[in-house]
């Protein structure tokens, strides 16, 4: 009869096997192929050149990487993407903080409802949310007329709200806001009122209580939220594609161009890899920070 340990191991493979297999085939392998593709030459009609050329040698080279490094415009686009993601993250933080605080402080029975209200917009279709801003920022819409009216009153020319960096940023914030609210709320909910009472008792005013107690304690939530906003924002392409102007090409747009328009797949892969490395490093960094701080706060398990 099989020993207990063997049976346990068999059970483990029965359960973890199928999802593991699926993800290996449809996630790990494509990723590896993409890495490999970055070392190949583009095919004549787009895509990839054959793996072995006429002489039978493997087609592997660093041309695409060299191109990325040599033509600085790509690095610039990357830096711009980082900039946009950063601004988005900060704006989300500023908006999310009061919201999360309010929910954390409201009576228990309302909290789930309030949270649901924050999440619902997230569950509406991504494109709808972009489209909504197209309407709001459209040249004939109320907002544009008010703003341009105000500008005209100051003697300045009309400013297009749509197809601009402003539109892209507003929409980026709009789309990612729930991701900042949730981790922040999860953290703030755990804060003990007693700490703030003690601080007040010791003479701290409202601002000091916030800055010296609440905010530092909320940092793990802030980092988690920042990671959840920054990383997706880095790779976004639909928003600049629909709402952005010619200056708003971000790395996501470049990747899309390379794969679907220019069809220079090796170069597109290089761009994707750069993006992946950036995203993964940030995710790992966020996880590392989160663990370091959470270690001090997690309750001791007996």
């Amino acid at each position, binding site marked *: *009869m099989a*020993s*207990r340990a063997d*049976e346990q191991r068999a059970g483990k493979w029965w359960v973890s096997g199928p999802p593991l297999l699926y993800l290996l085939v449809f996630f790990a392998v494509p990723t590896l192929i993409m890495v490999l593709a970055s070392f190949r030459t583009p095919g004549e009609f787009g895509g990839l050149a054959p793996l072995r050329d006429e002489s039978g040698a493997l087609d592997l080279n660093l041309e695409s990487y060299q191109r990325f490094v040599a033509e600085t415009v790509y690095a610039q686009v990357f830096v711009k993407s980082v900039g946009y993601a950063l601004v988005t993250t900060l704006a989300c933080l500023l908006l999310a903080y009061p919201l999360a605080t309010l929910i954390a402080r409201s009576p228990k029975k309302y909290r789930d409802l309030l949270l649901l209200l924050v999440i619902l917009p997230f569950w509406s279709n991504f494109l709808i949310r972009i489209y909504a801003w197209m309407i709001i920022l459209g040249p004939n819409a109320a907002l544009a007329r008010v703003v341009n009216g105000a500008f005209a009153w100051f003697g300045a020319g009309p400013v297009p709200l749509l197809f601009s960096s402003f539109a892209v940023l507003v929409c980026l914030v709009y789309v990612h806001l729930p991701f900042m609210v949730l981790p922040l709320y999860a953290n703030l909910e755990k804060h003990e009122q007693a700490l703030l009472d003690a601080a007040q008792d010791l003479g701290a005013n409202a601002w000091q209580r916030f800055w010296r107690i609440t905010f530092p304690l909320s940092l793990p939530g802030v980092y988690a939220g920042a990671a959840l906003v920054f990383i997706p924002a880095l790779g976004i392409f639909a928003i600049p594609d629909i709402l952005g102007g010619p200056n708003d090409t971000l790395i996501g747009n470049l990747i899309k161009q390379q794969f679907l328009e220019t069809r220079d797949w090796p170069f597109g892969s290089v761009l994707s890899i750069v993006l992946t490395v950036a995203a993964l490093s940030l995710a790992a960094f966020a996880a590392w920070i989160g663990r370091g701080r959470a270690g001090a706060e997690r309750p001791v398990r007996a």
Partner: protein
Amino acid sequence: MALLEIQGVTRRFGDFTAVDDVSLAIEAGEFFTLLGPSGCGKTTLLRMIAGFDLPDAGRILLNGEDLADKPPEARPVRTVFQSYALFPHMTVDGNIAFPLHMAKTPDAEIPGKVAAALEDVRLPGFGKRYPHELSGGQKQRVAIARALVTHPTVLLLDEPLAALDAKLREEMQLELIGMQKDAGITFVYVTHDQTEALALSHRIAVMNRGKVEQLDEPSKIYGFPRTRFVADFIGHCNLLSGPVRSAANRVVVVDVAGLGAVEVATPLADATRAGAGGTIALRPEKVRIEAASDAARGNHYRGTVSELLYMGDVTVYRVATAAGLRIEALLANSKAGRAQFFEVGDAVDVAWSADAGHFIAE
């Protein structure tokens, strides 16, 4: 041959040895208790009997058969968990019927057995309720009913009464004794509560740091503790330690700092050498306490009452002798004469006879 034999079982978790080379033989039909403070290994040992953990060394035999390769579901051993572990999505009937289903009992027989099990734990008619509708004591009983319904060979109980309040606990203790006697099943009971252990068990294994310090009937554990730990863990005890001055004729004399020479009658006298370390374990209820008087006869020690604890039926006096050593004396209030109610600060004499103490060699 004993029903359940534990032979040289050891279990380690990394650097920590939870169970250290423990050997026990548990007889059929007995109420056997593993008693000890938290971390002593009693629960780990219980889980190994149940099959949720495997020993790193040693064997566990049930009716002579090695249980090593048998997973929990194949062992004729049932566990009553500390948290009861009743399936929240099943009714009481469903919970109790579960092991019957697993044992492939014919469907027709199941309702009858379930009803009988509920009767045995005195919860007739509770079948349609869900666990969250039950009180702690009721959940307790359903857990026991579920464990007993397939008439296991051994029932393991992991501190089942820990979550109940004092009065309920006492009631359940009596019920458990009754249940065990009626069902005739071997109980292996784990607890850290020594009064509970003393009240319920046929035999107790006192465990500390993975080892069994003493295995005996309750009265012997209480009256004749074999180690300092057992003496201290069970009930209250005065522990008078020091080097042995002399040992002969069934009397050992120990030099106790602060008291001087103290005699104790013990069968170990012949095996004890002068100079070796020893402890006299003296139960407070064997210490006589009287108002200080020069007319006192016999061996007595002078001191002042430093603390007293009035507990309703008894009073515990802590008496500080001149050298600072504290002796505890317990006096049943109903037996105390007028002259024996003392206040803090009173001068008193404490005394005991040589055979009131129990000698423990170091």
